[in-house]
């Protein structure tokens, strides 16, 4: 009889095994970025929605609009350093330590989305089988990196408008209001993605509820790695997880959830 995922899980119950997923550096990096993001969100939203009561309360509590701008810009500057450091470390790792560029988006990520949608709609019986990072995580990661770069460029434009025109005199004046529009819209988009998608996936999703602790402990349980990153599990352990054919309806209870 073939060993399905469900049975495999039953077998290891009682002596739970964990896999190391993140080192201390990545954990701290996430926490630092989360904190910067939070500060930028609070001070940024208060500026974007300056006419509403809560925004006014935040601004006045923090000591006035000038203070809020200083906090926002300082944190923005720290965020620039974080991004620069992240890219530098990634470049170093990829070039000199032959890291596996597992976060790069592949064609498979797009087919995974379709596979998962099929699974959600009940067309297939099992979800997409993902590697170290699934497409949801890649989406969030690249959202932060690309969106962050956009925020940095537009943010610096707004911070140093006169210097920008001295440096690049060919730019039209319209670039400033355009940067403002892009900065505040992109920020709103990023915040909305974080509060819906990221918070759902790491807190409210039934698979991780009440909290996905991986980013705090650096560990992931064997149960979850098999479930969420089966290809990585296979790569690490060399164990081939057998996949139940989708056609057999009676076997549905045996499939991996």
């Amino acid at each position: 009889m073939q060993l399905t995922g469900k049975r495999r899980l039953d077998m290891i119950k009682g002596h739970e095994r964990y896999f190391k997923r993140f080192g201390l550096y990545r954990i701290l990096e996430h926490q630092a970025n989360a904190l910067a993001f939070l500060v930028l969100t609070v001070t940024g939203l208060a500026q974007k929605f300056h006419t509403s009561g809560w925004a006014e309360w935040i601004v006045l509590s923090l000591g006035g609009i000038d203070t809020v701008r200083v906090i926002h810009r300082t944190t923005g500057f720290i965020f620039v350093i974080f991004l620069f450091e992240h890219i530098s470390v990634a470049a170093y790792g990829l070039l000199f330590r032959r890291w596996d560029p597992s976060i790069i988006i592949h064609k498979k990520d797009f087919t995974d989305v379709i596979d998962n949608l099929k699974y959600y709609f009940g067309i297939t019986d099992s979800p997409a089988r993902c590697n170290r990072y699934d497409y949801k995580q890649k989406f969030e990661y690249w959202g932060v990196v690309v969106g962050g770069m956009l925020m940095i460029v537009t943010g610096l434009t707004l911070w140093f408008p006169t210097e920008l025109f001295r440096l690049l005199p060919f730019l039209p004046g319209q670039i400033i209001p355009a940067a403002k529009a892009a900065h505040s819209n992109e920020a709103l988009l990023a915040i909305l993605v974080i509060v819906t998608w990221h918070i759902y996936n790491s807190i409210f999703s039934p698979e991780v509820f009440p909290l996905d602790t991986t980013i705090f402990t650096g560990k992931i349980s064997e149960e979850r790695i098999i479930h969420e990153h089966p290809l990585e599990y296979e790569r690490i352990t060399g164990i081939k997880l057998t996949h139940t054919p989708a056609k057999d309806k009676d076997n549905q209870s045996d499939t991996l959830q």
Partner: protein
Amino acid sequence: MQYRYILFAFLIFFSLISSGDAYQPTEEVQICLNCHNDKSLSTTFKSGERLSLFVDDHSLRDSVHSELSCSNCHSDFSVETHPQRAFKTARSYKVSASKLCTNCHAPNKGIHAKMLNAVKVLVCTDCHGAHSVKKPTKENSCISCHRFSLSMTFADGKSISIHIDEADIQKSVHSKLRCYDCHFGFSAEEHPERKFKTRRNITLLNSEGCRRCHFDKYTKTLESIHYDILSQGNLNAPVCVDCHGGHSIFSGRKEKLLNARRCERCHSKIYEAYSQSVHGSALVSEHNQDVPVCSDCHRAHDIIDPRTVDFRNMTPGMCGNCHANEELMSKYGLSTAVLKSYLEDFHGVTVTFYRKQKNAVRHIAVCTDCHGIHDITKTKGSDSAVLKSKLLSRCQKCHPNAAENFPDAWLSHYEPTFKRAPLVYAINLIYKIFIPFMLIGLILQILLHIWRYAVNR
């Protein structure tokens, strides 16, 4: 019917008795009047002036002196004697005749005593009349003297006219008030003598009287820059009557041009600039009552120092009073979006918060920094080019490094439309579509995920 006749007879009887009681001229009076009731009787002075010698029987009868005989006042004359006298002018005759009043009425203190010394200026009969002498009534007691060209001398040697034009008072908003409502201590009976060093002192004192009725306005002036200057010892700082006038007080709200011209007295250069501005020229040449005058922005009574940050930060609100008023602006085809577009921009946000913070010291660009203060011009037509050409130098006041295209960063109060600012318009449009698209997509995925999980359980 018979009662009526009896009643009528009684009425006639009593009216005969009462009229007989009221006036019984002495024999002397009757003799004098034999000639002096001739209206054509007159005398000619050396100066050529003619004086009528007619004495009205009725005015004598109504006078307080009705019981006196002619010779009581005209002591040289009697039934027997009628001396021939010669006076240079009618005035010198009056002065001489009035001296006779002091035989009975000899005040040795108060305003009358003082006037007797300076008897040539004003004599008794000028105020009280000659044959028709009456008790001064409360209503006309002040004006009966002050309608003459009297003057008042101060300790510094300067003198002013204390002549009051009744017509001025009739035009004034205070026409119903009586003199002593403002001039305390004076009445029909009382006329205390007062000594002032300068004319200014009496003006300052009189202004204090306004607070009795206008206490709210008075207390507001205590917060004004004018009062600050006054309390620092500069007595030329304007007080109530300097702006509102003394006896000819007008309504500042109804007479906008007059209102502005009062400020001009001290702030002439500013008035000149204002009168050429888009607002001032409309007021001066068209008598347009919609335009703001000085007091609309600076306020009338609690005028604060316009150089303060507080005043600067109030500017958008002041301009917005009219420029965000849809009804008013539509009359002139002006956009009301100017205030909103300013308030949503960097400068507007800062100023709005500064007004609430109270600790703001930085100067942030407000309406007047680009449009001018008193010399505000039109933003359309030929003036718009002038405004635009000045813009860079205005930006450079706060942003010294501003380059040539820096002013274009400000979209001139226009909404970013496809034509005006295509880049801004496009970015806003893309996000307007993209944000809901992304969000709905993610939420649908979350719901699908939950649904699948629930089904599988």
